[in-house]
């Protein structure tokens, strides 16, 4: 396991699990959100984003958290040897997402590049919750097909917190 793509809806624990995999396997960790959201919530174009991510994906070893399929296409999975998919139940990720959003709003936590969660962004359409909800169901069709189209990549689908813990426990010290 040298190049790991971590997938999942917001609140599923992608960053936490991605960092844990990176730490246990000694791999560099890359969070696509941090690269994508520039100061003032600015976003790169697809060409600009590919320009940043391609040299990272070209490296020998990494954990890349996130997909951005609309901008990156298959760039990351084309190089990944493993896809870890956090397909957790709604009852697990939805409360986490709600709690995380409230915590970020109240504590004014910095997310990336000086950006902070904004109250209005919880309500703009599609808001984060609606988007996560739709993605939860869409991914059940998309992810298996997407990974299946890249047979060099092994899909590890984790459906519960216990499976996540068990998986992390198999990675070594």
């Amino acid at each position: 396991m040298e190049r790991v793509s971590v997938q999942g809806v917001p609140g599923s624990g992608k960053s936490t699990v991605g960092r844990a995999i990176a730490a246990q396997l000694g791999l560099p960790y890359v969070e696509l959100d941090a690269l994508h959201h520039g100061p003032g919530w600015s976003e790169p174009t697809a060409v600009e984003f590919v320009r940043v991510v391609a040299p990272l994906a070209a490296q020998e070893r990494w954990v890349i958290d996130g997909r951005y399929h609309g901008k990156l296409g298959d760039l990351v999975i084309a190089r990944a040897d493993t896809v870890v998919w956090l397909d957790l139940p709604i009852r697990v990720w939805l409360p986490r997402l709600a709690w995380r959003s409230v915590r970020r709003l109240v504590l004014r936590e910095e997310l990336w590049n000086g950006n902070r969660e904004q109250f209005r962004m919880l309500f703009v359409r599609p808001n984060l919750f609606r988007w996560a909800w739709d993605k939860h169901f869409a991914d059940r069709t998309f992810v298996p097909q997407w990974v299946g189209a890249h047979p060099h990549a092994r899909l590890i689908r984790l459906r519960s917190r216990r499976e996540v813990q068990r998986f992390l426990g198999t990675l070594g010290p």
Partner: protein
Amino acid sequence: MSARSGLRDETWRLARSGAAAELERAADLLDGYDAHRARAFALAVEGRGDDALAHLEGGAEGDWPFPDALAADRARVRFLAGDYARSLEALQPAVRGADRLDPAVAELAADIAARDPTLRLRAVKLVLGGGTTWQRLRNAAAAAVSRDR
């Protein structure tokens, strides 16, 4: 890539670390000029400066990249190939008369001075030729005291 975009130039970072194989792979993942740029850097890292420059030029189309960005990339290729005098020379069009200087360009001038201290004075003069007054002073100071990383 211009640092003005606010995005990190990961291709240049790979090149600075001498990762030729990774640059080749990045070139396969990139398109157009960006692919040429990555491959040119890989060739330059392998010491094939002239081939690298020809490959870089071959990727330029019409008005892309902008002339100052292309000049900076030519300078980067020369730098990677170890030809610091020509790197500094190639950097001139990217600096001269610029209203605001791309910090990555100023950084390259300082790196050249660090790698070849005999070029330090020329590097200082070069960065005094472009950017805001504050940038000119700051970049000149950086080029004057830069040390090899």
